[in-house]
């Protein structure tokens, strides 16, 4: 009996294999990209997807995803995605946003896209700081966390409290699917992928707005080794940002 090798894991066709991302070593932005691309590939919609990149470390996402894309202004990806989806209701439209982009400057746009039940999917990368601009405080920065604009640690009396975006959006009637996952270990990566798949499925079924928040690492600005950065997610972020599905369309398990 001869033995052959059956593929267990191969790179997705949804990302360009000819380009290496600009992300720092161990940054889980790369994992999130892969999960989205895998889901789009598995759903068979790569050819009819339009993505929206936002301003943050993922600003160059359009260089990696093998789908048509638009680059949005800082914080405005949900508005841009809305414009696209209204013109092309039968295409799959997603926005990929960081926590500065979505939860600071873009708060109005995400709340209203969600309230409208806009039939788009938002992938929300919560890495508790502004990665791209070298580590300033984000709306999701934890109390006490040091950043370049909270050099002594975030003091809520001065700089306020972190925002739980998934919970905030869950007060609205528009969303069909809201979940928070994490990328800090393989089990959670696989769970995150299931969330992402359900989000896109909700869109394909025309159920309305879907969002997956992903706790993600920023080893560079956290000043941690990549593996330590995953520990930081598990030990510090997860307790403050509970994981799970907050909103599911009826009839979805």
């Amino acid at each position, binding site marked *: 009996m001869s*033995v052959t*090798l059956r*593929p267990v894991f191969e790179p997705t066709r949804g990302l360009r294999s000819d380009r*290496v991302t600009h*992300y720092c070593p161990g940054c889980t932005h*790369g994992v999130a*990209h892969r999960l989205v691309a895998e889901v789009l590939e598995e759903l068979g919609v790569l050819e009819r997807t339009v993505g929206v990149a936002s301003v943050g470390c993922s600003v160059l996402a359009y260089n990696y995803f093998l789908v048509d894309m638009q680059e949005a202004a800082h914080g405005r990806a949900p508005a841009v995605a809305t414009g696209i989806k209204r013109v092309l209701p039968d295409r799959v439209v997603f926005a990929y946003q960081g926590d500065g982009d979505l939860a600071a400057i873009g708060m109005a746009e995400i709340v209203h896209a969600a309230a409208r039940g806009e039939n788009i999917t938002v992938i929300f990368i919560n890495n508790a700081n502004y990665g791209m601009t070298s580590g300033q405080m984000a709306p999701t920065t934890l109390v006490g966390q040091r950043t370049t604009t909270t050099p002594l640690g975030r003091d809520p009396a001065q700089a306020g409290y972190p925002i739980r975006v998934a919970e905030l959006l869950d007060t609205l009637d528009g969303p069909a699917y809201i979940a928070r996952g994490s990328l800090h270990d393989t089990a959670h990566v696989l769970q995150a992928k299931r969330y992402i798949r359900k989000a896109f499925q909700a869109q394909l079924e025309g159920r309305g707005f879907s969002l997956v928040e992903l706790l993600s690492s920023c*080893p560079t600005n956290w000043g941690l080794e990549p*593996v330590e950065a995953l520990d930081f997610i598990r030990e510090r972020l997860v307790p403050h940002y509970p994981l799970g599905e907050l909103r599911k369309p009826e009839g979805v398990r």
Partner: protein
Amino acid sequence: MDRVLFDAARCKGCGLCVSACPEGALAQREEANRMGYHPAYLAEPAKCVSCGLCAVICPDLVIRVYRPVAAAVPAR
């Protein structure tokens, strides 16, 4: 052929796969690749069980995983 293949040129040497491998089969090379990183590799092929978890955590599309199967009658 190894169960796990690394596209070493893409590897950024972050070590996530190394720490994620439940079998301790992976390690990083001494020598840097063109980008200046120390790429991961299958240091102990015998330990690998093709679970695929190294690929699941890799942010950079470096890893392919295969599982050896008996080459039975081709399925129709």
